[in-house]
């Protein structure tokens, strides 16, 4: 008993520096945001005195609801596309010979050597109305010559998928690498078709990697600002853009804070659900 308590004291001591760091640069600023959200704005761009719920009430306007809904579906769709693309890639990476694996992992990591903003601007060039992709698609009759590839929600999804695909491939690859591929042979041996073996044995086997991958796209996508700002246009606006507008255009910090609070809570909600679900699943094993 005594040893137990001494150990827990030591654990607390060891975690103190990181707790301090997190409090100073993350928890306290977040609490500021929560506090400011409950303050009235003053006309000079500052924060008024007293407390109010008005900032949250004003979020119920249809304008915000449209943007919130768009933010949600862009994030869900981006996460879904990323997973659909990353799962076969992760599977392949885990099975390919070590030499090729190194080469492909390189290919996935190389884009990070270029600045994130520059890569998004590159997409702007690629998708430009006078660009090669647009012209080729128009010529082949797949899209009408008037249609635009840029400045819409589709462009946001495309660039979001491009940006976060490496972050989904890596956790899926890490899980697939630990997967025992003899299990797939066992499934085939027991009468499963190729696809059945994949869905019934491989996907459950890399479940953890899949969850991590989903969170790696979905959460940053919910808060994305730069991508919709550069390739989204008015019809591709997301909550991040609205927050920026409230800060830089309207100079209304309380309103921006209220939006941020909603965003933070909507990110925390799915994360906590996943954590609780995982905890519950692991419990019976942990008891042993």
């Amino acid at each position: 008993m005594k040893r137990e308590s001494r150990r827990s004291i030591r654990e607390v001591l060891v975690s103190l520096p990181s707790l301090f760091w997190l409090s100073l640069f993350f928890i306290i600023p977040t609490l500021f945001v929560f506090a400011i959200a409950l303050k009235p704005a003053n006309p000079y761009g500052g924060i008024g005195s007293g407390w109010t719920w008005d900032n949250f009430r004003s979020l119920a306007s249809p304008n915000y609801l449209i943007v919130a809904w768009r933010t949600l579906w862009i994030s869900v769709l981006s996460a879904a596309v990323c997973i659909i693309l990353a799962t076969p890639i992760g599977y392949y990476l885990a099975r390919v010979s070590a030499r090729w694996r190194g080469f492909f992992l390189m290919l996935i990591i190389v884009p990070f050597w270029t600045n994130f903003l520059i890569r998004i601007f590159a997409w702007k060039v690629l998708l430009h109305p006078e660009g090669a992709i647009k012209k080729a698609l128009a010529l082949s009759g797949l899209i009408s010559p008037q249609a635009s590839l840029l400045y819409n929600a589709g462009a946001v999804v495309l660039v979001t998928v491009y940006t976060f695909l490496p972050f989904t491939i890596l956790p899926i690859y890490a899980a697939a690498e630990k997967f025992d591929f003899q299990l797939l042979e066992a499934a085939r041996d027991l009468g499963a078709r190729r696809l059945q073996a994949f869905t019934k044995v491989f996907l459950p086997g890399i479940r953890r990697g899949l969850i991590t991958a989903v969170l790696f796209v979905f959460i940053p996508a919910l808060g994305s600002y730069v991508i919709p700002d550069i390739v989204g246009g008015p019809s591709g606006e997301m909550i991040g853009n609205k927050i920026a507008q409230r800060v830089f255009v309207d100079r209304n910090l309380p309103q921006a804070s209220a939006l941020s609070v909603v965003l933070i809570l909507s990110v925390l909600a799915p994360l906590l659900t996943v954590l609780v679900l995982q905890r519950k699943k692991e419990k019976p094993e942990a008891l042993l």
Partner: protein
Amino acid sequence: MSEFLEFRDVSKRFGTIQAVDGVSLGIKKGEFFSLLGPSGCGKTTMLRLAAGFEYPDAGRVILDGQDITDLPPNKRKVNTIFQSYALFPHLTVWENIAFGLRVAKRSKSEIETEVEAMLQLIRMSDQAHKKPDQLSGGQKQRVAIARALINKPQVLLLDEPLAALDLKLRQRMLIELDMIHDQVGITFLYVTHDQGEAMSLSDRIAVMDSGRIEQVGSPAEIYEAPRTSFVAAFIGDTNFLEGEVTGLVENEYCQVKIADIPGVICFNDKSMKPGNPVYLSIRPEKIHISRDRPEESSRRNIVSAIVEDMIYLGSTTKYWVRTHGLRVQVLRQHFRFFLDEKPIRWNDEVWIWWHGDDGFMLDRYRAVDEHLVALPPRKVGEPEDNNEKR
């Protein structure tokens, strides 16, 4: 009886390694058949060819008269027990066993009755809702067997299924496997490097080496009448004595000169002629040892020797004796123990003798088999050759 599972001139190459080299082999219905050989001999590849995980470079695989070479694993009426069991870690014991029936889209009630029956067969009804990582090695093994058998395969393929278990458990599972084979009566193709397993379970054994089959036969045939020096050395212990045929005795036997021992009598099953070089293989337990000179009798070879090393093993004692510059291993079974009998000790002069029928003349072993036939060890205490036969 005709062949049930048949390999016809099957070959398979991996890169530069010829894993299976033109093997033809027939396995009868209901038989417990073992593929026995050192690692890398191609036995597992044979099993994977039968399961459909590998496609042969040449040759056909035939099951019950049907050519299954081109069928994918899920279309073959064979099931595999993997060395690592390969139980699905995210499914319970119950779900693991039900897997085959579920992908076959069988009705719910049918699945339930069959899974319960299987759980009873492996005596694990009370463990049905555990996950594989909560089971012991032996239990995992039994689940793997149930999961395969529930599909009613025509042939059950077992890939070193006992290799991961400890000795006592292995012995119990051996008996259990044997019982299951008797109960379900399907054909077993069993791959192992362990001669003990193969000997005790099999109706017939194929000894493999370097992608080829050295000999097929019943355990007793393989042990008592090895056809090649590889088989003689791989199955059990043996003494290899190099010599030359010097004459024939009544055509059935020949006289062999070994070192400077003239006229060793040996059964001539290979129609050797005088002048032929031979390797004489004699099992250690076929050689008798005593302090007193035995009576002369026809076809009995009697040689005097000096005891160099001995190991007392309880039911038996192993002796290494030197005679005419040769080191010979002798195994003596203790039938009864006389306290007043003067035991054989180091450096004692003894007589060893064996019957002419107990020696086998074999071809010279190949250079690659040297490590297998490096018998006997030079000195007691050196790692025994047996342990390296993996």
